[in-house]
């Protein structure tokens, strides 16, 4: 039995986990399922692509890939910039759309609005970049062997980066004042406001973190698959599955949920057939909703 799916599944799972963190945070703090979250992933990836090209042109011929990786410093710098921009995009979307709906106090209307926003954001990418696939790196990478599994240096670096980002976020939530405020708002917004927490700032921070991590997921995805405007939308169901699997509001849960979904998908591709991969997230989701709707780390609603 080949265990190759472990390598592919862990990388895909870390990508899903990064995206699911944003879903789980917006769900627990703003209390609605954001169907536009997948689009932050696509936008993050396209922004990185644009910026990497611009920085590469500015640096001229001096851009060479870093060590064994297929990407140069321009892609790394572009990714960091794009993370900030995608975070701002999420804040902007909240300011023009979701904030107005919160005033009416109906969270399910926000779900419809997010669905409309998702269609508009995705179609906008298609109008700007067309649906022709593009790539972050044109180089082919030779896989190295780690304990019998074939992995590329890119995959190893990305896995490390994803774990680092999520560990940093978990530290921020657990130890910093901002993190404590976020948890307080998630617990009870009215009470949080009474004790003097700036709820609007907490909401902006939530969107920023969600958008930035979605962009990181987009860059990871963009190094593995073709970059197309639908790339994020196709990841939406795995994101929801991972967030619910891990328990709404739990950051480590979202990562673990992402890894479970990623590994299950990779196993399906290896043993059942690649065309049925998209069914895996749904089956996990239904099983979880029937057996343990609060998730692995969640509290019952």
């Amino acid at each position: 039995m080949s265990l190759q799916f472990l390598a592919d599944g862990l990388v895909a799972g870390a990508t899903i986990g990064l995206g699911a963190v944003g879903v789980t945070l917006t769900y627990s703090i703003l209390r609605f399922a954001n169907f536009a979250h997948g689009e932050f992933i696509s936008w993050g990836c396209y922004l990185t692509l644009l910026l990497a090209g611009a920085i590469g042109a500015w640096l001229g011929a001096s851009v060479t890939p870093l060590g064994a990786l297929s990407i140069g410093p321009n892609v790394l710098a572009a990714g960091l910039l794009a993370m900030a921009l995608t975070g701002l995009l999420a804040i902007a979307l909240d300011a023009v759309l979701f904030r107005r709906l919160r005033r009416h106090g109906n969270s399910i209307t926000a779900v419809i609005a997010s669905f409309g926003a998702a269609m508009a954001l995705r179609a906008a990418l298609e109008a700007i970049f067309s649906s022709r696939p593009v790539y972050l790196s044109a180089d082919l990478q030779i896989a190295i062997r780690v304990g019998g599994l074939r992995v590329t240096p890119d995959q190893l670096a990305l896995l490390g980066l994803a774990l680092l980002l999520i560990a940093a976020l978990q530290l921020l939530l657990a130890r910093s004042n901002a993190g404590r405020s976020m948890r307080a708002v998630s617990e009870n917004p009215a009470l949080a406001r009474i004790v003097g927490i700036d709820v609007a700032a907490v909401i902006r921070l939530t969107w920023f973190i969600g958008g930035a991590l979605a962009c990181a997921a987009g860059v990871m995805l963009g190094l593995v698959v073709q970059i197309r405007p639908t790339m994020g939308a196709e990841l939406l169901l795995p994101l929801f599955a991972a967030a619910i699997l891990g328990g709404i509001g739990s950051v480590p849960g979202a990562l673990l949920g992402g890894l479970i979904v990623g590994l299950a998908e990779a196993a399906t591709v290896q043993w059942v057939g690649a065309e049925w991969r998209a069914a895996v997230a749904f089956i996990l989701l239904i099983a979880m909703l029937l057996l343990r709707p609060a998730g692995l780390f969640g509290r019952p609603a």
Partner: protein
Amino acid sequence: MMHDVSGIIAYGSVFLTLALINGIACLGLNLQWGQTGLFNVGIAGFVGIGAYTSALLTSAPADGRFGGYEWPIAAGCIAAMLMTGAASALVGAASLRLRADYLAITTFGIAVMVQLVLRNAEHLTGGNFGVSFIPRPFASVAERPALFGTLNLLLVSGLVALLYVALDRLVRSPWGRVLRAVREDERAAEALGKSAARFRLQAFTIGGAIMGLAGALEAHVIGFIAPDNFDSALTFQVWTMLIIGGSGNNLGALLGALLVATIWSVTGLATGALFPPEDQARAAALRIVAIGVLLAVTIVLRPRGLRGERLSVSRHLTGSGQP
């Protein structure tokens, strides 16, 4: 001159027929969302189940594909409603007892699964090529497009009228009142001895069956279906129709369907005339952006839509007015 007039009639009748078919799906959604507050993001999946059920049962046998029983069209439509109703009941039973957004996520997943089966289970659904040569009503006059289109339009209009009257009676019946009670205040409804879960499941099932009918009609009117017809763009269109028309109002649902279909068709003609052929795909994306923005603006500025919900207490009382 004669030729022009019949061309316009043919185009206009096909346009109105397809708009009304989307209107039927919109009426189904109105029962689920407008009356009962159930959030369905998988409309395309349910419409697809209806379309394929009727198409496979009524068409002639084809090599290497399930179905081909040559049932009459009406029987196919009824089977489509039963099948979609059953699928909705299953989905509802699994997720209605959970939070509202979990139903949204589950129905979204159902639509993804239906797409997957339509594309990959080639022996059942014909795969990416879809199903063609689906029997069409009034096929004997198909060579005369104006007459053919008009007859189809009359047939679909008749069905819409029937459905409208039936739904209007349902909404005003005691059953409809319970739906709205469950939507507004579940605990109060439970305190009055009404099982919220049961009424929700009934509304979700009937709404789903209506969407299945819309799918079956689409299959028979066009005569050809493929997985692409049932992707998330359809779900998005039907939602936009209901929100713009006014959720909770059946007339609003139909008005919204006609209005959005008109916008879709006019912007299609405009982009066709304004952009060179190689940019057509990107221009089509701009139309979706426009409709998405229209949806968002309506939700923010005019949440009740064109025609909001009317306060309907009982058909035995006359004191109905704006809430």
